[in-house]
């Protein structure tokens, strides 16, 4: 009898506890205290900050001083987030998403469908913060409406363990390498230590590697001066031959590497090119053991990819002024510095980096500056205009690498076959040429 009573009391307590937590979480803003009449809470949906730590930093630190309507920050893989945004856009009326934070290229199909509010006025108000004009222009997608306001930026560069420096080929300057020198460097290491220490981010696990970005923004343009319009030409064949050579001196477990900071930290590799946010942990943990330097140059120049992430407000927003207040908060110089400190994305507003910046971040900031200011530097944006076909395009590019380099299939055959798949994705998306390929009237043509 007593036991039954106790059990009932416990159950009641449990139910009460659940009820109380439910009450306390609904409707409460996740950042700061509530100010009078800030409007409806809304969702901030982004393809960035997917690692759990970055999400926590976003909710607890970047939004800490934000005092507006309740914000529920959600993040997931590109497909999931874009599906959700387009679902709300198609449903019309009022949705839940108030602000979106996407990469430049991820906006294009939604922007073309007119899913976003014009943020020209908001951009004007940000004038004092001196966001670079070319970034703002990127956010207009060739039209007059400001589809997004730039939020933060990132890039990719080369990180090397200092133990590798003694094997640098003679005459090579680590801050101005060529791909030829990089191959010789990796070969030297392999010859002298018996270990293959270059790493490619080729993994396909929970956090898939960004090899397609290296091919699109670094290897192809640096060797051929283009990507789509030079996909199958003689320069491209020379590039693939070089990559095959580099692969000989690369860690054969590269096919499992999602982010290079892990094999760099365990010293499975000494050299690798990856996204800034995917190297920061090792640079923060062992800033004295590593150098961060510009990506190498090819015959056509030192091309590098600039990742611009922008903020936009969907037309179905439940709270437009709330969304604008959030964007304003995210663009404050102090918030931009917090974003850099916590999640290692670089500011788009004019702000002096503090002297007490973490050593690892300092390494990255210097590498970014050296890369952008190199005299042969040329910048490439993320693919533009592919929309929903972006995934197929990326996979076709990655498969080209896997077939030629990993599986050792004949270069020209693979380029012809994969070229057809690349062309189909571009034609289906009706994407014009972008970046190093120049412009085109119809869909960009694989050549």
């Amino acid at each position, binding site marked *: 009898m007593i036991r039954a009573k106790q059990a009932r009391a416990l159950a009641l307590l449990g139910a009460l506890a659940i009820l109380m937590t439910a009450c306390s979480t609904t409707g409460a803003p996740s950042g700061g205290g509530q100010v009078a009449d800030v409007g409806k809470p809304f969702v901030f949906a982004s393809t960035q900050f997917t690692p759990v730590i970055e999400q926590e930093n976003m909710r607890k630190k970047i939004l800490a001083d934000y005092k507006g309507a309740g914000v529920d920050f959600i993040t997931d893989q590109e497909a999931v987030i874009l599906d959700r945004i387009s679902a709300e856009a198609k449903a019309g009326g009022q949705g839940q998403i108030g602000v979106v934070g996407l990469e430049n290229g991820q906006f294009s199909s939604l922007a073309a469908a007119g899913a976003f509010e014009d943020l020209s006025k908001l951009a004007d108000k940000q004038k004092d913060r001196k966001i670079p004009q070319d970034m703002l222009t990127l956010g207009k997608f060739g039209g007059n409406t400001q589809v997004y306001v730039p939020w933060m930026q990132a890039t990719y560069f080369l990180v090397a363990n200092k133990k590798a420096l003694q094997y640098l080929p003679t005459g090579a300057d680590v801050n101005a390498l060529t791909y030829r020198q990089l191959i010789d460097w990796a070969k030297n290491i392999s010859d002298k230590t018996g270990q293959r220490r270059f790493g490619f981010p080729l993994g396909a696990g929970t956090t898939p590697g960004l090899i397609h970005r290296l091919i699109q923004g670094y290897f192809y343009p640096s060797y051929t001066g283009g990507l789509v319009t030079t996909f199958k030409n003689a320069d491209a064949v020379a590039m693939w031959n070089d990559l095959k050579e580099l692969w000989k001196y690369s860690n054969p*477990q590269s096919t499992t590497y999602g982010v290079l900071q892990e094999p760099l930290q365990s010293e499975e590799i000494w050299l690798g090119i990856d996204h800034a946010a995917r190297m920061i942990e090792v640079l923060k943990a062992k800033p004295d053991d590593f150098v961060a330097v510009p990506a190498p140059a090819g015959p056509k120049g030192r091309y590098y990819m600039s990742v611009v992430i922008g903020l936009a407000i969907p037309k179905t927003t439940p709270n437009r002024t709330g969304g604008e207040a959030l964007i304003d908060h995210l663009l404050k110089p102090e918030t931009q510095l917090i974003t850099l400190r916590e999640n290692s994305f670089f500011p788009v507003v004019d702000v002096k980096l503090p002297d007490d910046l973490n050593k690892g971040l300092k390494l990255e900031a210097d590498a970014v500056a050296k890369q952008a200011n190199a005299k042969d530097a040329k910048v490439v944006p993320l693919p533009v205009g592919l929309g929903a076909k972006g995934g197929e395009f990326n996979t076709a590019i990655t*498969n080209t690498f896997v077939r030629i380099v990993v599986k050792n299939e004949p270069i020209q055959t693979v380029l012809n076959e994969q070229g057809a798949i690349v062309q189909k994705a571009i034609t289906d998306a009706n994407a014009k040429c972008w970046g190093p390929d120049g412009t085109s009237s119809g869909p960009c043509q694989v050549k």
Partner: protein
Amino acid sequence: MRARAERFLPFALLLPAVAFLALLIVIPMIQALILAVIAEGGGFTLEHFERMAGDVNFSDAWRNTLLLLILIVPLQIVLALVMALLINSRFRGHGFFLYVYAIPLAISDLAAGILWLAVFTERGYLNSSLQGAGLIQQPILFLSFENLPGILTAIVVAESWRATAIVLLILIAGLQLIPRDFFEAADVFGAGRFRRTIHVVLPLLRPSLQSALIIRTIFAFQTFAVVFALAGRNMPVLAGEAYVWYAANRNEHLAAAYAVLLLGLTIVATVVYLRVLGLREAEVAR
């Protein structure tokens, strides 16, 4: 009145399960079937199946899926059977082993994959232990793309560790259903432990073995998280391709085509098991 209510009772009791199956299994299945044969602009097409069959990874995915199935399922059934018989012999502390064996059940596929990645990677636990013990000088690259047997072994070990427990539980439940009198009768006729297992336990365990095989084979067709974590791009499998086409390539039609193919394979496998291990009427009634 009462008799009528009683006649409907079984149906009423079945209703929640039927509704659940319809909502979460049958409807999505039909949707997948439709997606797989609908062109992007509408209208019937077999284009998605043609594209699937012509994809670079298709033949590899097909080969790897079957290879893993052939390697993993028999191994797991044998392992689980041995473990089940061991636990069912009720030695001192058998409960402890049951709990230990069942732990992997509570771990998600992907977590299991990442766990084993930490074991098998170049600087992983296995290599450090072997090096620490002085057995090897240089770490062995188990997961190198040049070492397919190594990758395959790692996946088989990880999958066996992860999913043998479910087979084990089904078999233990089956073992416990066997009436004690059969064993007593076997004892009376002088059967030893071994003969008892061969002639009494295994035949009576057949229905459970059948369910275990069906469930395990279906799971084997669905395997991909462990493979993704351990092999990355080195070992495409069918379920993984469905995921890639949906999540990375955002082409739900091709993903659905893969799903339909897997559905077909699963149905074929199930029918084969039902036929080969066919139950006689009496056993079904039991």
